[in-house]
């Protein structure tokens, strides 16, 4: 009897181990962010909030943080404006060159980031856009589109078109059908796609290092520079804040709520829906 129980628990145990394997190395930055040491040291010799104070008062950290949020938000909006119509066209229409278009959209995902970075460096440099926020947004949009396009296509393929027919026969024209039925039904997929687009930009380091320059430097670039120069434990603070932000986001979006939409949104974050 107990043997059977033990065998039943092996998958759970394995899952916990894998989770720890993935999570522990990341978690190590948390104690280090509260450290009193002048550089990375584990375990920390003492604890203080000093580096948090440093982060929140140092403009060389705050400016890249602001840049990151600006670039990521703009990237998210632009990406959605471009990839939503693209996904609709790709999933619903049959046209010449459909497969080629799909391949082209997926290209930024296949090309090594360094190659893309180099290409952007040459291309945007000629246009005088290196070191500017619009230049960063352009580069990040092209990297984010394939990610959100993939998510949107998967969502759209699972969409039951009879819902739109039902709306139309109920008296809704194409516009009202789209905004009252199609969009709300696809909401969870849209939210996921936007989030991926945001993160594709927010987490991106290679292109940022190549083209963002001093003025448009983003957080990942600043962190990379910082660890090369002085191994400043402020990086640990930034990392901890990022981990905290992501965890908060996931917890909030998985919280069961009365409204059905938020529930389906949470489901789609955890895995494919029904």
């Amino acid at each position, binding site marked *: 009897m107990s043997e059977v129980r033990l065998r039943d628990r092996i998958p759970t145990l394995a899952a916990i181990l894998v989770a720890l394997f993935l999570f522990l190395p990341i978690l190590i930055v948390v104690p280090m962010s509260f450290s009193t040491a002048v550089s990375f040291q584990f375990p920390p010799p003492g604890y203080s909030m000093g580096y948090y104070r440093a982060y929140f008062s140092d403009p060389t950290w705050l400016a890249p943080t602001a840049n990151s949020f600006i670039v990521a938000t703009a990237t998210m909006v632009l990406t959605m404006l471009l990839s939503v119509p693209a996904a609709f066209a790709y999933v619903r229409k049959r046209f010449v060159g459909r497969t080629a278009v799909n391949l082209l959209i997926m290209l930024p995902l296949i090309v090594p980031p360094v190659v893309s970075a180099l290409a952007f460096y040459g291309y945007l440099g000629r246009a005088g856009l290196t070191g500017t926020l619009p230049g960063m947004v352009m580069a990040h949009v092209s990297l984010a589109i394939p990610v959100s396009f993939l998510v949107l296509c998967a969502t759209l393929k699972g969409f039951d078109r009879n819902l739109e027919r039902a709306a*139309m026969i109920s008296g809704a024209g194409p516009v009202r059908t789209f905004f009252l039925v199609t969009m709300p039904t696809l909401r969870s997929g849209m939210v996921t796609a936007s989030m991926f687009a945001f993160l594709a930009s927010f987490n991106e380091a290679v292109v940022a290092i190549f083209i963002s320059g001093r003025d448009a430097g983003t957080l990942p670039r600043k962190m990379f520079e910082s660890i090369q120069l002085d191994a400043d434990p402020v990086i640990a603070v930034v990392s901890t804040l990022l981990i905290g932000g992501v965890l908060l986001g996931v917890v909030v979006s998985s919280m069961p709520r009365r409204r059905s939409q938020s529930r389906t949104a949470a489901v789609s974050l955890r895995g494919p829906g029904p």
Partner: protein
Amino acid sequence: MGEAYLRLVGLRKSYDGVHNAVEEVSMDIERGEFVTFLGPSGSGKTTTLTMIAGFEDVTSGQILLDGRDLSNLRPWKRNIGMVFQNYALFPHLTVADNVAFPLRMRGWPKPERRQRVGEMLDLVGLHMFAERYPRELSGGQQQRVALARGLVFSPDVVLLDEPLGALDKNLREQMQIEIKRIHREVGITTIYVTHDQTEAMTMSDRIAVFSNGRVEQIAAPLDIYHTPATRHVAGFVGETNLMLGRVTEKEGCLQVAELGLIKVPPHRNRHEAVTEYDVIVRPEHMKVVRGSEACDLNTFEMTVETVINYGDRLTLVGSKGGLPIRVRLNSLDNLPLEGEVLVFGWCPKDTHLIPRQPAGDRSQDRSPLRTVAGALY
């Protein structure tokens, strides 16, 4: 006037310009009538329904509703209700909001909307589920919501596209009764698409049997059953014994290869040119002949190969000269055994004859006799 309420005039639909999904469909439907489109998949019944709804353009022909032509009206302008096989309820709206949707689109004020939705939910017996979401309901309940949504705005016509296809057998029967009751109460013109002959028989005022993009016959269920217009209709509605009968010199008799000479009733529209008939005898008209009552019956001797016991009735399956024959027995007395040789017979008046098209038209189906009968067997 005297014109029918909904008229389909020479409807044709081709998706590729070469093949016709619907060849030619014409029919008149009266106000308040319950008409079923019955046919196998690919017979054009759903395409016809889709054209009435307006989701597909009409390649040629007209759809006239109360005298006005619908062909160029978009679906949202047609004032037609529809119920889909997979329900197609809006997942982000509650049951009440789903039912209210068509009223919202028509700009009904909120209080009237709420009252009307309440009435509809009462009609389908779901008033206590108003605030639930569709996924919290069972299949049958979801279908009722879809029905309420299709009827709430008092459409001119309601279309039901295999609405019970996804339900299990018991629920299906229950919903048949339910839909029939609602149709009686609301009195709305209804078109019901199904491939289930039982559904068609039990619910319809008239059945239109579809085949290869055409309507083979449109008539009341019992007329379809007793006097099918084609052997395809006979084969699709109910069980059938189908034979080929040739005209002989003997008046009132036909020659059937497997059974010999049979007596047939005088055929109303006997035509000189017709030399062959499809002879149809329903299994329930066949009986076991014991003793000497055989004088007026067409009789034959057959070995019982299979006995199918349904509990309240029996079906005996055998074959005579390669022709499969089914006999339905409603009495379980004298239970026949498999392997037993019995004399069977049927009354000549229970024979239904369909004239065969003159030769030349028949090249495409060599042996329809065997194929249809074989499919049934």
